[in-house]
């Protein structure tokens, strides 16, 4: 038997790892799962003194097949539509007990945009001291890729398939962040797994605020979107660079920061790498129209959030992790 020695400085490697991770490896997420990565980044930033609530969905299922659990912080799953309300109850209890432990509610886009929206809106309105995190993979993935109100326009899912009479989802992706903004909570933001330090930074920022905060993390699902697992980061980054998923921060409902896009890409660059948009590249007039429609949506975001950056940057061509302070132009 031949022996290979690899020269690795284990101690140096360890030092590069974050000190605490609330979710362990070994869970059962698919290869390249954006949500698993987002959850890991979140727990690294949140630290050990947190309690998590989790709506029904992929994350809940792949992390806790009894008698195993990937979580190293207190974690509770109750139902699909009450993650925010369970968190509100935990927060109320901790408040009465005089504890400072931060409560973080988590849910997928189905749970957040659709079925659990009422509980979320109620919790934000009541001002609970909690952070709500939505892992946005743009469909009901746990039940097999059905459309949600977060599914982008024209994407195929198992309940919005493309066919002779349809070009995928007929409706727009719900503008959840604007709806959240209307609650005038202290802090709300969007981020993406393509920008790990942005995710961590925003979690830390939200954690430091006393009151309700909201974070929407764009997290590709290779299975549901139809791309290879090793392309998750690339696909997520393209969503941002095309302007389809703006990375912004809101304070009391007002736009405070936006990640500039120095070198905007056409939406087709993002769409063509995913099977869920494959039908848009057929030789079909309606497909062409839908592509134009999607480009118009991206252009609208560029305008609305003033996303255009100042051209290529020698240090940072992707504009990654650069957040530019802006005024309150957007209302």
């Amino acid at each position: 038997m031949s022996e290979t020695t690899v020269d690795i400085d284990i101690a140096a490697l360890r030092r590069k790892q974050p000190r605490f991770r609330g979710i362990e490896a070994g869970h059962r997420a698919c290869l390249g799962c954006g949500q698993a990565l987002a959850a890991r980044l979140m727990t690294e930033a949140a630290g050990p003194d947190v309690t998590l609530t989790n709506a029904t969905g992929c994350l809940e299922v792949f992390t806790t097949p009894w008698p195993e659990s990937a979580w190293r912080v207190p974690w509770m799953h109750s139902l699909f539509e009450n993650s925010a309300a369970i968190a509100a109850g935990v927060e109320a209890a901790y408040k009465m007990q005089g504890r400072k432990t931060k409560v973080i509610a988590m849910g997928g886009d189905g749970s957040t945009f659709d079925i659990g929206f009422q509980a979320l809106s109620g919790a934000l309105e009541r001002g609970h001291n909690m952070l709500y995190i939505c892992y946005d993979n743009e469909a009901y993935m746990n039940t097999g890729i059905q459309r949600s109100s977060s599914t982008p326009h024209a994407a195929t899912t198992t309940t919005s398939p493309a066919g002779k009479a349809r070009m995928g989802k007929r409706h727009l992706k719900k503008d959840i962040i604007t709806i959240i903004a209307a609650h005038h909570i202290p802090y709300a933001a969007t981020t993406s797994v393509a920008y790990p330090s942005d995710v961590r930074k925003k979690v830390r920022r939200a954690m430091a605020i006393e009151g309700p905060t909201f974070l929407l993390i764009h997290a590709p699902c290779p299975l549901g979107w139809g791309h290879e697992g090793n392309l998750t980061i690339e696909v997520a980054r393209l969503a941002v660079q095309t302007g389809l998923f703006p990375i912004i921060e809101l304070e009391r409902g007002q736009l405070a920061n936006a990640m500039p896009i120095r070198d905007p890409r056409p939406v087709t660059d993002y769409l063509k790498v995913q099977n869920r948009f494959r039908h848009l590249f057929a030789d079909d007039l309606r497909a062409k129209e839908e592509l134009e429609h999607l480009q118009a949506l991206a252009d609208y975001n560029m305008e609305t959030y003033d996303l255009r950056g100042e051209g290529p940057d020698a240090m940072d061509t992707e504009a990654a992790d650069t957040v530019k302070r802006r005024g309150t132009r957007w209302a």
Partner: protein
Amino acid sequence: MPLALEGSQALARTVALCRPQVVAAYPITPQTHIVENISRLVADGVFDCEFVSVESEFSAASVALGAAAAGSRAYTASASQGIMLMSEVLFNIAGLRVPMVMTCANRSVGGPLNIWNDQQDSMAVRDSGWIQLYCADNQEAIDTTIQAYRIAERTELPVMVCVDGFTLTHTLEPLELPSQEEVDAFLPPYAFSRSLDPAHPISIGTLVTPEHFSEVRHAHHTAMVKAIAEIEAADGDWQALSGRSGGALLESSGPADATVGVLTIGSIHGTLLEAMTEYPASEPVRLIKLRCFRPFPAAAIRAACAGLERLVVVERALSPGSGGIVGNEVRAALSTMEQPPRVENYAVGLGGRDVPLDLYPRLLEADGEVGGFSVFDVDVSRLAPEDQ
């Protein structure tokens, strides 16, 4: 000294005596007065709790669940459509074996819309895995609520205290309210063995596959059956302390040689008691008042029915297409007796239909079909001609 209190007011003050740290509720008739009274106690600084005024019953039950899981005693109350809306959470609370207490101010379930009393709401969630105790009067409601916390916390099973809407919740009565010292002596501070604590992180509500699910259900069922002893013990201990019973599993009254029995659940008992003096029956009658419906005290029911030849089961709900819910379960329980009584079964007082005193003689005279069921007091001429 007895105080003249409305049922809801008494319940609110009783809840405060139990010192829940988190109360979450949403208004619905006839439960509203309970949460309004609690809100007032909180506003007046008499009751120190986090009162979470939620946006739905779904969140009311969820907030209470989160709070109880996080290590605080929790309370909620609802009725009717509210119970239906929170039913998914009710199953979840029980399945996760998280202890808490709620009041169900019993009301019919629409449609058609009807805000008055029957027990269709709590009966609809009888299989949710909650302990269910039905109160015959407001004094029982007070004593049962206090006992409910002890039962819940010792068994790690949630308890639903059922009080008839309006009949109890909106009635002014002279009531004995225990002192804070008495309640504190009976009810130790809340200590949940599996609470959400970063110092001892656990995962609650995980995915359980077929490999373990039957065992989970078995454990839940076993815990419910074992709770019978806790329910009896709580009532015995409370009686020793306060001098009052909350109604045990059931209570039966009347001559030992009676061969006719009437079994009721909830406040109809009071009406029948009065009716018995107003309309003395030709033969001795035993009244059986069922307080504990879940767990179902089959052995106690058999013992209470010993010697009876005829039993009339009167209830305030039904399972359409099947019959009486209580009646069917009583029949099943009695079937193992050597000489079971003949059982007749009626649903009365549906959607607030008056339960007059003369119901008693009419029930005894009705001589209904043995093994059958009917809704009592139906006047088909009130239906549209095509439905008659």
